[in-house]
Every structure is written in C-alpha cells, then in structure tokens.
C-alpha cells in the first residue's frame, strides 16, 4: 500500500465531489416518483454496489490501471455516491413510525440486494 500522499488525497477528493452531487440529485429527482424517499437511497446504494463489484473485478482481471483508479472511482466516487448514514437514519425513521414491514423490506432488501449487486458486478467484470 502506498503511503497517504497529497496526490492520492486529490484523487479521492476529485472522485468524491461528483459522487456526492450525483447522489443528491438522483435521490431528489426520483423522490416524487417513489412511494417513500428511502427507496431512492436504496437504488443509489445498489447501483454503487454493482459498480464497485465491476470495478474490483476489472482491476484484478485486466489489471485496469493501479491503485489510483481505485482511489478515484472506488474510494472517492462510489464511496461518496453510496451512503450508510442516510440509509440507517431512514431505517430508524421507519421503525420510529412503527412501519415494521417497510423497515424489514428496506433492511433486508438493501443487504441482500447489495450482496447480489456486488456479485453481479464481480461476475460481469471477470466474464
């Protein structure tokens, strides 16, 4: 592992900005079309899971660039595009409103869906 240098930080930061902006815009864009806002967060997280699986397997199968691509796209862009805090806060809010079925769907759907999405990305990248 390379030491955390100033240049590397720049790659993470450059990836993080479009990742966070895209998450913000995508969730807001789909909010009026969805029954609950948290399904927007769910969608964003699943897309990020698929993409990170694809990225990791492309990197190991074709040696697609080195650590810096992963810093820019994986740590910076996808790390910022996906979110754990909003997901948990929304899960907490559904539990608070005693919407148990919705909470189970959101929680189970995110974890199982996330695992499937990563697996699909890994499989596509190594095929």
């Amino acid at each position, binding site marked *: *592992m390379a030491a*955390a240098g100033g240049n590397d*930080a720049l790659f*993470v*930061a450059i*990836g*993080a*900005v479009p*990742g*966070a*902006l895209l*998450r*913000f815009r995508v969730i*807001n*864009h789909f909010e009026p079309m969805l029954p609950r806002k948290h399904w927007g967060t769910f969608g964003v*997280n699943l897309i*990020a*899971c698929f*993409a*990170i*699986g694809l990225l*990791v397997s492309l990197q190991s199968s074709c040696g697609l660039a080195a650590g810096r691509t992963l*810093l820019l796209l*994986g*740590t*910076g862009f*996808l*790390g*910022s*595009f*996906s*979110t*754990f*805090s*909003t*997901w*948990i*806060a929304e*899960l*907490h809010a559904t*539990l608070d409103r005693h919407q148990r079925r919705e909470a189970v769907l959101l*929680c189970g759907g*995110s*974890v199982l869906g*996330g*695992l499937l*999405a*990563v*697996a699909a990305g*890994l499989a596509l990248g190594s095929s």
Partner: protein
Amino acid sequence: MATSPTGGHAALRREARDLLLVATGAVPGALLRWHLEDLGKGLMGGHAGLIEFDLIANLLGTFLIGVIAAQPAPRPRLMLLGGIGFCGSLTTFSSWMLQISLALRRGRPDEALIVVLISLLGGLVAVSVGLVVGRWFRR
C-alpha cells in the same frame, strides 16, 4: 430541486449554492474515511483493518446525521453541508457490501454475518444517540 423555468436567475443561484454546499461537505467526509481506511490497513492489515475502520467511519457518520436530524427547525444548509455532503461521503454502503461479499468468498460467512449485525445494530444505536445529543444543542 430548483429547475423550474419561471425561477430564472434566483433558482439557478440557489441550485448552484446547494451543489456547492454538498460538494464542500463531501470532500472532507471522503478524505476522513480514506484516512481511517489507511489507518486501519496500517494497524491491522488488509481485510480486517478495512472492515473495522469502515465501520468506525459509518458509525461516526450515522451518529452525526442523528445530531443534525434532531435540529427542530428545518436547517436546509446544515443538512446539505453536514448531512448529505459530509456524513453521506464519510459513510459508505458500497465498500461495506464489498467487504462482506469478499468475506463470504473467503469462506467466512460467520465474519460476514457479524459485520452485518454489528453495523446494523450499531448504526441504529448511533443514530438514536445522535438524536438525543442533537436535542441538547437545540436552540
């Protein structure tokens, strides 16, 4: 969203301000997460370090979003900068899921399950504590 055609200049400026707030929060959030991951890899090596220090980043961000959400009056700028920007980028769902998938692929379903449970329960506790702490800061 401020894209109504009638809004004109003001709407465009508000849009630009919103995006700037999110971006300004996102950079330190992502850098802090990356430093934590690096620290974890240094202290504990590879997988374990990544998992544990991603967990720290996720729980810290979840606590902070609770603090922000507890503020009574709508604080749109604080939410954009701190919540959506900083906490959203400090925490990550994709790396978390990747680590869990890789643990399963290493034939360690026990490890994967423990990480999922600790993250979920820890996250729910962190956001609850954040909400309580956030109420102390209410103005």
